[in-house]
């Protein structure tokens, strides 16, 4: 296994220590718990808290979005595994400023069950109001008719941004939850993978992809996609992804969209730009206006090769939220 790590069992703890070593001025652990990261940025009194949680191995998701204008706190589990309900509850408690907390996270079994338990705990034990919005943007993970089964992938970054901006404005918990849901209703993602990744404690790839093949629709933990295809050109892959995405989220002429081309970990920026070029060609051809491009690594699967494409259809409200300033150690839209 070729990883720059020490003991596999210490992987997550050491990553967390690295984050605080580098960015200790802006983020901190909750009471020394190396699985809970909180923002140090001062926020307005009574701001609605925004909390997420999920497995490790997806940086900048989730920890990377803790900071100004985005998340107040985040709990992480082991690689690809949910943190415990207790840790989620502690995170919620730390992020409540009296007006409740939005739990905004990807739709995965373990996370769902644990967040439900955590919300129950803080409501019963601490009288903290919570709302839950689950990210289900991956069109490849279930057909539109079963959209509630879909997984949450890179589109969650846009949701963090929109919800974070609306909370920073001083909106109520219900309003923030509504805006997160509205954003998500306009967000769709699809990914392709070229190579697997290795969970450090497992030590070898969970799955394999043949040298001449591409997994269309694969999930960020290696969940199988829609089909395995012989390796295709960048343009052909993008066209195929756009077809699926646009079938689910039609973009009329004149509409505005922010496009995210997200590298899964091992794919060079050069290739992401070649993909963006094609998206731009196709959507411009449909008279769709592309604004605020997100090209880079926003939600990864460690060393997996491949990328995902996210469309975020904007109206005036969503665009303003997307443009609002945000700054975390791993993300800023200052130059987007």
């Amino acid at each position, binding site marked *: 296994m070729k990883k720059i790590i020490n003991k596999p069992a210490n992987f997550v703890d050491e990553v967390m220590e690295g984050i605080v070593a580098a960015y200790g001025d802006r983020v901190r652990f909750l009471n020394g718990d190396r699985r809970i990261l909180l923002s140090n940025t001062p926020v307005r009194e009574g701001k609605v808290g925004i909390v997420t949680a999920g497995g490790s191995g997806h940086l900048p998701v989730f920890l990377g979005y803790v900071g100004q204008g985005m998340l107040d706190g985040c709990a992480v*589990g*082991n*690689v*690809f*595994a*949910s*943190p*415990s*309900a*207790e*840790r989620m509850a502690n995170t919620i408690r730390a992020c409540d400023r009296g007006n409740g907390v939005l739990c905004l996270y990807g739709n*995965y*079994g*373990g996370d769902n*069950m*644990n967040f*439900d*338990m955590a919300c129950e705990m803080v409501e019963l034990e601490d009288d903290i109001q919570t709302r839950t919005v689950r990210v289900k943007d991956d069109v490849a*993970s279930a057909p539109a008719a079963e959209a509630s*089964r879909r*997984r949450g992938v890179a589109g969650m970054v846009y949701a963090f941004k929109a919800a974070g901006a609306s909370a920073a404005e001083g909106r109520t918990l219900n309003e923030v939850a509504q805006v997160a849901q509205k954003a998500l209703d306009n967000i769709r993602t699809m990914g392709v993978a070229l190579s697997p990744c290795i*969970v450090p*404690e*497992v030590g070898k790839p*969970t*799955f394999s992809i043949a040298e001449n093949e591409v997994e269309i629709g694969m*999930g960020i*933990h*290696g*969940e*199988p996609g829609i089909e395995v295809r012989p390796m295709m050109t960048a343009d052909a892959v993008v066209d195929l992804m756009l077809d699926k995405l646009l079938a689910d989220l039609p973009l009329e002429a004149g509409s505005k969209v922010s496009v995210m081309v997200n590298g899964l970990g091992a794919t060079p920026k050069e290739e992401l730009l070649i993909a963006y070029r094609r998206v731009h060609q196709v959507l411009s051809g449909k008279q769709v206006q592309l604004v605020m491009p997100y090209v880079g690594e926003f939600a990864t699967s460690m060393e997996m090769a491949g990328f995902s494409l996210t469309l975020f259809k904007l109206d005036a409200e969503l665009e303003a939220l997307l443009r609002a300033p945000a700054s975390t150690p791993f993300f800023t839209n200052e130059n987007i």
Partner: protein
Amino acid sequence: MLDAKTLRTALQEVSRTMTANRQYLIELDQRNGDGDLGISMDEGFAAASAFLDASAETDLGKLFVGMSKAFNEAAPSSLGTILSLYMMGAARVLKGRETADTAALGEALTAGVAKIMERTGSKPGEKTVLDALDPAARALSEHAAEGASAALQAAAMAARAGSDSTAAMKAVHGRAAYYGDKAIGLVDGGSIAGALLFEALARVANQ
């Protein structure tokens, strides 16, 4: 007779079993999941066992609550969380008791199964751990009169048979659901963890 001491011994054996099967469970989960099953079962049961080893508590209900929390702390994966729900469900029945006979244990584990179903919306027949846990609880209750050893033997056989039967099923929950028909023919990894759990309990009861 289940009490704090036999529970401790039992969990030690379960924990050893999961450690021994760590790699096997990882590989099972890699076929139609993300491969963490062996890690979470190993670490979850180790934590539950360590909790019991360190606890002076004698109330079985409180011990089950503690195990549930320790398990969830250590292994908050899907199956880990489901098993801590299971222990939490059983805890309600055992609350206030320092001992439990086989019938009471059967009742507790049946409540555990119900708790899982209530919280996950799943039911037996959907290619999950429930296909091992549900028949095991039923068998335990049915054979309770025959004594702990025989009843747990029956439960272990029922769990294993239930697990075997998942091969023919189509998954509707969790990661395996994404594999659709591709996973037909594969036994559900979670149900195998369930069978290993009851087989370990049966071994302990037999000693």
